[in-house]
């Protein structure tokens, strides 16, 4: 059981909360405590919009334990509109084939399950094709 390690990440997992450097204004997701660009301490949270586009993608057939009941699934590097790249699964693709440049938005989904029927379900962000306004 790894309850605390997932609970403490709830803001970033559920709300896409990263951080922004108070000095050089660089935005980070996942959040960082020290700015790699200018070396400043980072104390300011920043909530990302959740909108972005696919920078790269692939499909996983041989999944690790915890994911082996959900495969095959697609993972992507998503370029958030505020700048950072995020690693996440693509979901709700339907008939759509992932492609570079596809516009996507963040949704909350089950990421994995921890073993047996009493295991913890871990939720977090995935990205789906952007819904038409």
């Amino acid at each position, binding site marked *: 059981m790894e309850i605390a390690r997932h609970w403490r990440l709830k803001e970033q997992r559920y709300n896409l909360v990263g951080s922004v450097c108070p000095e050089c204004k660089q935005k980070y997701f996942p959040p960082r405590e020290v700015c790699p660009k200018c070396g400043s301490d980072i104390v300011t949270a920043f909530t990302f919009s959740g909108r972005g586009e696919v920078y790269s993608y692939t499909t996983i057939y041989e999944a*690790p*334990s915890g994911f082996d009941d959900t495969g095959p699934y697609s993972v992507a*590097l998503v370029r958030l509109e505020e700048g950072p790249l995020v690693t996440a699964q693509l979901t709700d693709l339907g008939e759509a084939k992932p492609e570079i440049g596809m516009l996507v938005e963040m949704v909350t989904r089950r*990421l994995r399950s921890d073993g047996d029927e009493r295991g913890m379900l871990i939720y977090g962000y995935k990205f789906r094709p952007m819904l038409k306004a």
Partner: protein
Amino acid sequence: MSKKTDVIITGVGQIPVGENWETSLRSMATQAMRAAIADADNPKPQALYVGNMLASTLSRQAHLGALLADYSGLTGIEAESLEAGGASGGAALRQGYLAVASGLVDVALVVGVEKFTDTIGPEGESALATLADADNESIHGLTTIAQAALLAQRYRHEYQIPTDGLLGFPLTAHANGVGNQNAMFRKAITPDAYRKAEPVCDPLNLFDVAPFADGAAALILTRRELLPTGYRYPVIHIAASAVASDTLSPADRADPLWFNAAQTSVEQAYLKAGIKSQQVDLFEYHDAFSIFAALSLEAAGFAMRGRSWQMAADGSLALTGQVPCATMGGLKARGNPGGATGIYQAVEATLQLRGQAGTNQITDAKTALIQSLGGPASVAVTHILAREE
């Protein structure tokens, strides 16, 4: 100019890479260590540095330093292990180099060992996934193969590479595996076999991914001033040792298609050895995935960005080419024994420089560049080995 404080590789040992079901972690390591000690004419090592990546999870065995020193009959000597992901072997060599160069240790034994087949299936994939960022990559189901596939997909898009563009890398590796009796695969492959291979993680197919396997390799290091009189081999010294790091996740890099740590460590190594890339007679790159081979060649300055795949395709990396790479099969054909890989590279380069590489011998090889990567060059350990005249 040779100096009496130069670090010399006096002994090498390796066992065949493969699915060694009948041999345990400790037994494989012991065989490689005994072979290296015998090859160096039986010196008494004062310290043992173990390169290993995942024994804690794959074999449920940590604490390899004391275990392997004891099991190989060296109970009592300094012994510890180094972990730097897939570069663990390179890190152990680096540690041995530092110890011997500093003068604090006269004779160091360095061993790389990995036992993949102790765990098979999804648990093995899980163990490998711990090498990526657990909170931000592995939790999303990302595997190490998928991480490489994301880079390959973007690389193809960015540089307009044909579907079979990376085929030169596995073809080169497999052609060279034929002549290496310790290689896992000793069969050349055809372009057609590559094109028809089973997809693994698009755009990577089976031949773009080096097979994880069991293996162990070892080295004996000492200083020139301690070299026994009448030493029987050409003297091979470590002309440079350099390590650099980068983010664990390519997502956290300004440019995911540039192996910054690989470039930095190679540049430092060239500077230290006082050579230029043109003087490199062979390059043992870390072709865990064909895209890694491509990005490593570019980072080391052998190719322009987006062009290294053409070198692989036109034969420039072959044994008789401009920059021979993976000369004993590389990770793709020799196999990828995780934390042992960096030591296999050093063993193979030493054999090339001694003139003991058999049918794979590079004519008059004097200078070898070897590079051990952890993850997508999250760590890059680079060494230059040189034969003395």
